[in-house]
């Protein structure tokens, strides 16, 4: 069974540009979570999608946005990039409904803003 896949692995952008990151959850998982992990720091919750709807959002500005598609894959968009957006962006999926299931993480997309 394929795990959570994220693309691209690495992305280099300049300040002010837009970045799009993609995530495919484990087959059958309906929930997708996005986290930001800045270098040497912990995980900061960004967004949670389930069944195509945004269910919860972390303390990030509106230029961080995303969506979930009918096949449950997800996209994270970051507009007007700033230097401090440089981080590892982790996607995770879970099967909501179990309610207490663990998150399964992808390998992450490393975004570098120059």
């Amino acid at each position, binding site marked *: 069974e394929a795990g959570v896949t994220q693309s691209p692995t690495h992305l280099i952008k300049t300040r002010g540009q837009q970045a799009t990151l993609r995530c495919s959850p484990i087959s059958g998982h309906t929930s997708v979570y996005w986290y930001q992990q800045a270098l040497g720091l*912990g995980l900061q919750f960004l967004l949670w999608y389930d069944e195509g709807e945004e269910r919860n959002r972390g303390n990030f500005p509106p230029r961080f946005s995303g969506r979930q598609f009918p096949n449950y894959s997800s996209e994270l968009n970051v507009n007007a990039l700033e230097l401090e957006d440089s981080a590892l962006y982790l996607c995770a999926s879970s099967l909501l409904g179990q309610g*207490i299931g663990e998150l399964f993480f992808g390998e992450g997309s490393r975004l570098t803003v120059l």
Partner: protein
Amino acid sequence: AQSVAQPEDQVNVAEGNPLTVKCTYSVSGNPYLFWYVQYPNRGLQFLLKYITGDNLVKGSYGFEAEFNKSRTSFHLKTPSALVSDSALYFCALDNYGQNFVFGPGTRLSVLP
């Protein structure tokens, strides 16, 4: 509000010695608690979870964790550390399916 604390940024232990990585939590109601491990430049891997039942939970790679409700703790342990256990360890709390709350992480270094 729900929160997770990992009081140690760094834990150093000699190979073969027992180790404990500490985690305390704050939550209203019954906690669902998890441990994850992250190797350099990788995503997080699930180690174990506590939902209900036996307070001692066994997980992957020889790790176990002890849930202590009175102390609101969920410490990760192994009886004999390996150099390959060196990684970043995160304790997490499931906020009733709303989102996971992660602790700040503890960097474990096992010295040969």
